[in-house]
């Protein structure tokens, strides 16, 4: 029997917590806008773009990716938080399979990320990027895929962590490189070889690339660098690996 009620109530809890933390809401809304406006206009003066795309337009897919990255990682932090403050035990002694807990955490984390990514798309028209229904549908599908990949990955790391500090240290060595090697701020094809290798295992890189397919079609050297099918395939495989790995680790760890 799959405990759909348990999954539902775990998702409900995470949503309630998210919308009740006013500080988190403000940061969530402000961070991508600050990046767009400050970094976008700052570098915009410096960077020569082409293909009819200005720098602020160019970084929008990357900033959507960043929003999803931070939101997903933040969500998985709540598992470490729950462990530290005891609530995880309330879940672990309940007669539900551990897989249900993992499913609830991944689902809630991805949906919150998707929601935040989607909210950011509201600024697209102000940057002269037009989004029709088909672009919106494509973006929602791709954002969900990226959200699941990163949330599952974060949960996998979180399930080994017993303290918030440890998690923060590890995540800072993963999250920031993931962002800077994602093609969010510059195309990754120009990177030196050792760094370029890292982009090939970075789910955010393929995620941002897939967003560029939708948001920046025909932008010359600033448009997507991999075929869309490669992006989607990589993300799907990456997500599957980490969904199963985190379920496995959760099941085994006591």
């Amino acid at each position, binding site marked *: 029997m799959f*405990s759909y*009620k*348990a999954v*539902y*109530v775990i998702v409900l*809890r995470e949503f*309630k*917590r998210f919308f*009740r*933390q006013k500080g988190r809401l403000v940061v969530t809304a402000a961070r991508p806008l600050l990046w767009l406006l400050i970094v976008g206009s700052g570098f915009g003066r410096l960077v020569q773009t082409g293909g009819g795309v200005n720098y602020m337009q160019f970084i929008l897919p990357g900033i959507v990716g960043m929003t999803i990255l931070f939101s997903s990682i933040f969500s998985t932090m709540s598992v470490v938080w729950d462990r530290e*403050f*005891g*609530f995880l*035990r*309330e*879940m*672990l*002694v*309940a*007669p*539900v*399979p551990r897989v249900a807990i993992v499913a609830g955490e991944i689902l809630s984390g991805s949906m919150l990320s998707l929601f935040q990514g989607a909210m950011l798309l509201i600024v697209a028209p102000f940057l002269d990027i037009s989004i029709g229904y088909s672009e919106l549908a494509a973006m929602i599908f791709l954002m969900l895929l990226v959200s699941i990949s990163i949330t599952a990955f974060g949960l996998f790391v979180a399930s080994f962590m017993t303290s918030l500090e440890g998690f923060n240290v590890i995540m800072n060595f993963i999250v920031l490189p993931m962002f800077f090697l994602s093609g969010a701020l510059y195309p990754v094809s120009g990177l030196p070889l050792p760094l370029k290798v890292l982009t090939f295992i970075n789910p955010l890189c393929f995620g941002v690339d897939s967003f560029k397919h939708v948001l920046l079609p025909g932008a010359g050297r600033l448009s997507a660098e991999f075929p869309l099918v490669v992006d989607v395939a990589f993300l799907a495989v990456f997500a599957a690996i980490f969904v199963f790995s985190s379920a496995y680790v959760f099941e085994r760890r*006591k």
Partner: protein
Amino acid sequence: MNPVIEVKDLHKSYNGVKAVDGVSFEVAEGETFGFLGPNGAGKTTTINILCTLLNSDSGAVFVNGHDCAKEPSKVRSSIGLVFQDVTLDNELTAYENLKFHCYMYNMDYRLAQTRIAQMLSVVGLTERRDEIVRKFSGGMKRRLEIARGLLHRPKVLFLDEPTLGLDPQARAGVWEFINGIKKGIKKDAGSTVFMTTHYMDEAEACDRIAIIDNGRVIACDTPAGLKRSLKGDTVHLKTSDDARAREEIEREFGIKSAMVESGLVLLVDGGDKFIPRLFERLTTSISSVNMKKPSLDEVFIHLTGKEIRDYGGNGRGGH
């Protein structure tokens, strides 16, 4: 009566340190069973194994007839838990915390609503139903946790140090409440309560107590039975030099005494006749003598050679 909890030769080590070293006991249905011991004696480790949160190294553990190692899910549906530290979600309301629990235990909406209303009124938190738990006092949180632990009508309610960190007034409130609950659930569900504590007065309220020290059960009986096992009287002694007095007593009378914070504790036959002889033969000057029938405190001191508060941390033994 069938045992609801059966533990046989349980072992568990952490990095080579034996936390639980061959523990065996049984708890009958409807019983309130207390695990008494200092911090670090192995109480929490045992309770975590019983609750399927931890795997044992060896030994058999059955709860409600289910093997904790092989059927954890069945064990989990039979038990309710109140942990040593708060495990509520502080950002949710009392109602939301309880609802979370109901859904995790696969109750439907209507059953959940009935049980939540019922338990909130039992713990006297009906009016606080929609308040965020963060604003609750320690005692209120404890009551809410106990209510939560009972929502799914468990066969066994585990209470791990249920009053740790509460002020005396809140402790009394929690106890009054636990006793009320016990009467209430015993009538219709036959619930069993398994609790750990390092407070003597709480142990006194149990039907049976197992005293645990260094990972082993060193005595298991009713509070009255444990006290009866100490024949004679206990004499509390304060002298100018306790260490010297202790040596002298052992040499002169062949009686071993335990050195505790407040002085020396001796177990003697016929304390009324012993005390005059003590004054006669002891060269260390005595500042006070006190004789009484053994309490659980003395049982513990006698069995372990230590006072529970020596390692209890907050200096609160039984009174």
